[in-house]
């Protein structure tokens, strides 16, 4: 099963119920949106899927792996990569090094051939470097290869984090607000990138507040509100859903308490 299956996932922090009985399915090779008002539990869900948090109850399955039993590094090893809402790059590394650090699960980099300077080690290093350069080119950062990541603009940092996630060769990519803080033109470039990744067979689950971005990009959308799933459907279905309209009007018109 290549679908990502989320079944009855709940999570509470002390007495606060962050997620309650969340269930939905992400079909392989699609871009799936996760939307909802602030505090709806979207980031908590991504943290649970990527193994940084464990669910209080419920199960998640991807490619016959029970995600709720795996630690973060094991989740990464089965081909699930993620980015962070607050961007967690390695600040004292260059762009190239950030991407190379992301090649952990896709490289061998064995110590022994390096100790003996074997050609195989040099070949692998060259190969990994080329792949990292190609990844940087793909997100449009090929002119910033040796810049320290903390000297990049906000949008560039988001794109670098996507490049670092892509160097895991993931089959499922979890993006937490990939275009937040980007100008319209830059967001369009990211949208094109995500579409082409999807055409290559990658599955993408993304959180985003930019509605036109979500509606134009995603084939299916799950709406969370107060930790519960309001609905899952196509953009048209979601737009027509009465509860969604209420939840969103509620946030713009009269705020939830």
């Amino acid at each position, binding site marked *: 099963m290549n679908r990502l299956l989320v079944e009855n996932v709940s999570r509470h922090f002390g007495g606060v119920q962050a997620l309650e009985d969340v269930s939905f399915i992400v079909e392989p090779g699609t871009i799936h949106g996760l939307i909802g008002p602030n505090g709806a539990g979207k980031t908590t869900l991504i943290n649970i899927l990527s*193994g940084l948090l464990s669910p209080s109850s419920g199960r998640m399955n991807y490619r016959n792996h029970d995600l709720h039993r795996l*630690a973060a*590094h094991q989740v*990464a090893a089965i081909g699930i990569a993620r980015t962070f809402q607050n961007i967690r790059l*390695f600040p004292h590394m260059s762009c190239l090094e950030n991407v190379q*650090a992301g090649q952990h699960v896709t490289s061998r980099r064995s110590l022994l051939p390096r100790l003996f300077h074997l050609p195989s080690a040099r070949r692998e*290093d060259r190969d990994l470097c080329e792949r990292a350069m190609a990844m940087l080119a793909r997100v449009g950062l090929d002119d910033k290869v*040796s810049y320290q990541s903390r000297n990049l603009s906000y949008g560039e940092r988001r794109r670098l984090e996507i490049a670092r996630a892509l160097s895991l060769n993931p089959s499922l990519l979890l993006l937490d607000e990939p275009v937040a803080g980007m100008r319209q033109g830059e967001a369009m470039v990211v949208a094109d990138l995500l579409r082409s990744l999807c055409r290559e067979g990658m599955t993408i689950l993304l959180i985003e507040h930019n509605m036109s971005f979500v509606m134009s990009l995603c084939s299916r959308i799950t709406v969370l509100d107060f930790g519960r799933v309001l609905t899952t459907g196509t953009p048209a279905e979601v737009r027509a859903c009465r509860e969604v309209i209420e939840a969103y009007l509620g946030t713009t018109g009269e705020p939830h308490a």
Partner: protein
Amino acid sequence: MEHLLQFYAIYGSVINFIGINALLALSLNVTLSAGMLSLGNAAFAAVGGYTAGILSLRFGFPYVASLAGGTCAAGLVGLVIGLPVLRLKGVFLAMATLAFGEVVRLAAVNLDVTGGAEGLTGIPNVTTTWMIYLVLAAAAYFIAMLRRSRLGWGLVSMREDETAASSLGIPVTYYKAVAFVIGAMLAGLAGGMYAHLNYLITPRDYGFFIAVDLLIYNIVGGTNIWYGPILGAALLTALPEVLRGAGVTAGPIRMGINGLILLLVILFLPNGLASLFARRRSSAVKAGA
């Protein structure tokens, strides 16, 4: 040649100490490069030193076998201590390792097998200068290559951001334990060589302030590159002799200069003296690009 021999006759022991201190500083660098502040390496050197000394002295082991025994003992203790301690962060890890170090030192003072406060005397004096520098070169090369390996990439990523590192597939806890054990083994090896350099080891050789000195060597030299700790150890170990040569004999002034160097480096050169070289290189790269 004659001058060289004369120089060695006078400064041989300083040259040996530089090598041992550099080796110890490198052992600490393994954990520091992963962002773990451990002050236990002097204690691991004690474990290695006493084990190797006892193996030579009481059981008649040949030198290399004693060193291997000391190295393994230190690694084993590192593993046992590391597993529970590595959950702690920052200064709490520093203090747990420091407390461990004190327990080891006090054990050495109180046990019979270690010779108590007077220490272990009569250890065969077989470590020579070339052996120290051969091992140092090998260790530096090992660490330089380690940094290019998968483990090395993982360790540096962990120092930058543990959460992000784990979501890139880096097994943070496992790598921490591995780094801790490698550091402990290197320290144990240095301790074993030191024990066979001097006829004598005492608990004082491995106290808290030795652990702090190792940290200072790394900070002054720079933790980001393999030659940083060696540079720091060489500079600060040789400094008293250099000052003596320059006519500064007052102990307080020498000590003050030590502190001042450390202060200036941490305030103005956070990546250590090695960054002076590295910076020149990277600016050359930028100019070329």
